[in-house]
């Protein structure tokens, strides 16, 4: 029986703009960015859960909320039985040893004035669980560098001396330093070349096997998400529109947005002769999301019901869900 590592229930994170006096006087007043608007998902231990979505879908905010870098408005994040949202500072610190993050900007997440070795050693010095001395930390850093296939000499170099792929690996080494159970990988191969990206994907897989890691894999590269993920969720404007195992979802794309999104993945060897579904219009703003179904403004099947009523996630069997009124009848 596979264990659930994380359960997210109806998570909502909103950002409030225009609270100040000037905005009230001259601007349009309070604006609410519905960044994450009722997201629920379950991540099984040892699995990779992929999240796919475009700008404004809320995937970055979701990551930040899981770590309580921003506070959610409502909802639960149950990690190993405890609700992260309600954790106090002490428990939060413990949580942050078990859950780590790999950031999208591989250079931005490294302090430019510290050496790679200092950066990787930081989690070890913060959580001096075994009261490690300098010797031990130094040894551990060497181990970590080796685990990500970097030379020992890298420890004395500054971030700007590394290539994109190497900087990414420093971030990975830092993330695994405390043997976490869960890692959120936010666009881990963005900005990397094809062969460098392949190296990172192989590395992440190896580490997952060796260290029994669970991943939340966020990417807009659909090929990559399909490759890496066991389960997948497709997000649009703060909501999950479709979710299920990767195999199920890609086999039977139910939601019109998923269908369009998958159809436009540039493929070198097309398996099927399906034509592209090219969506019209722009992605709406999360400040004023469309009423009812948020995708209706770009959906060719949109009907009156789509405008009035927000679709709930419909069970299509074996854990495959999609939020579309058109599926209700089947």
């Amino acid at each position, binding site marked *: 029986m596979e264990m659930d590592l994380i359960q997210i229930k109806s998570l909502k994170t909103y950002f409030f703009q225009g609270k100040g006096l000037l905005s009230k006087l001259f601007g349009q007043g309070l604006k609410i960015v519905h960044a994450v608007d009722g997201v629920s998902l379950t991540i099984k231990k040892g699995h990779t859960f992929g999240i796919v979505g475009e700008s404004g879908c809320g995937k970055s905010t979701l990551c930040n909320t899981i770590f309580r870098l921003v506070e959610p408005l409502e909802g639960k994040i149950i990690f190993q039985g405890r609700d992260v949202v309600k954790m106090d500072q002490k428990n939060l610190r413990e949580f942050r040893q078990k859950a780590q993050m790999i950031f999208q900007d591989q250079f931005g997440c490294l302090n430019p004035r510290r050496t790679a070795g200092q950066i990787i050693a930081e989690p070890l010095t913060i959580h001096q669980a075994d009261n490690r001395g300098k010797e031990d930390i130094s040894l551990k850093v060497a181990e970590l560098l080796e685990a990500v296939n970097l030379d020992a000499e890298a420890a004395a170099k500054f971030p700007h001396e590394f290539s994109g792929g190497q900087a990414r690996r420093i971030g990975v080494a830092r993330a695994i330093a405390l043997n976490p159970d869960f890692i959120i990988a936010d666009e881990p191969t963005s900005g990397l070349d094809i*062969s460098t990206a392949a190296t990172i994907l192989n590395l992440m897989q190896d580490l997952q096997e060796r260290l029994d890691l669970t991943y939340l894999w966020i990417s807009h590269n659909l090929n990559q998400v399909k490759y890496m993920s066991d389960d997948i969720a497709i997000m649009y404007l703060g909501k999950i529109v479709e979710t299920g195992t990767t195999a199920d979802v890609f086999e039977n794309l139910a939601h019109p947005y998923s269908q369009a999104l998958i159809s436009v993945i*540039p493929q*070198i060897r097309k398996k099927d002769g399906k034509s592209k579904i090219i969506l019209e219009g722009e992605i709406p703003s999360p400040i004023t999301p469309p009423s009812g179904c948020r995708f209706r403004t770009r959906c060719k099947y949109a009907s009156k019901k789509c405008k009035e009523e927000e679709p709930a996630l419909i069970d299509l069997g074996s854990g495959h869900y999609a939020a579309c009124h058109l599926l209700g009848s089947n």
Partner: protein
Amino acid sequence: MIRRKGREVSNILLDVWNLCVEYNLAGKRMQALDDVSFKVKKGEVLGVAGESGCGKSTLGLAIIRLLPSVGEIADGSIRFMGRNLVKLSEQQMDEEIRGKHIAMIFQNPQSALNPVFKIETQMIDILRFQSKHRKSKAKMSRKELRQQAIQQLKETGIADPAERISNYPFEFSGGMKQRVIIAMALSSETSLLIADEPTTALDVTIEAQINKLIDKLAAEYGTSILYITHNLGVLSEMANRIMIMYAGRIFEMGRTQSVLGDPRHPYSAALLESLPGHYTKGKRLLSIPGFVPPLDQLPSGCSFHPRCPFAEEICRQQVPTLNEVSNGHWSACLLDQQRGRQKWKWI
């Protein structure tokens, strides 16, 4: 499939021969492009693929003569419409070639638009410059230019162009900005469009829209496209022919299906095996050992040989040239040229 088929692709529009570009950085001479030769036919889409540092962006900039001050065209010729672009003066390039017959669009739409001017100001500015150097047409009034700009915006699919033209760039999304750029770049006179990663910074669904737009307009105006990107998937759908570059040289060139379906060069084969494609987790991807050499420390002979498991002594000694190994298919691998069709299996 977006690729155009069955079009008149007869005459040669662009003929690049032995192009060599060097950069002078901090006293070091770096060979950014070495002996690059290829042709672009009228109406075709030629894809330029490769990883960072291979010189594909440099190639685009060299053709339109917009290399940074530290770069220079050291050798070679770029024949376009009967003239050698390398030999033209800056003024000639400005008035006769750039923005008129050859246009270029870049990756980052925000950096291409001036944030403090309205869209209409920027578009009219360019249209006015272009009309000034058109000997045939009379000088157009501001109103006429504005109408022309609105028409251009309409053709690139921007809704309510008459209203939106008075917006500032920050009021447009990334995709819309790129449409504005395309509107400014492409006209019926554009013979060659150089597109340097035009959709890399955009979301996937918007990327599809923009590529569709580029293709549609180019087909309408009969424009050839030099599409520069690292995304082989996009090229497989948009390009008639494709060339793969590495460390300033062309390694392989030919029809898209040939190169991507039957790669003759080990590097091309390696790139294809590094992509997740239809695989799932568990199938290890190819990770090419080693790293791309810095341009001032290129290896002897074939610059790929230190990383190539198939390399032999000749690869270390002789610099390969691009030769036609089968009909329309060119490869710069010595072993391939000598022994014929090889199946380069990396894993």
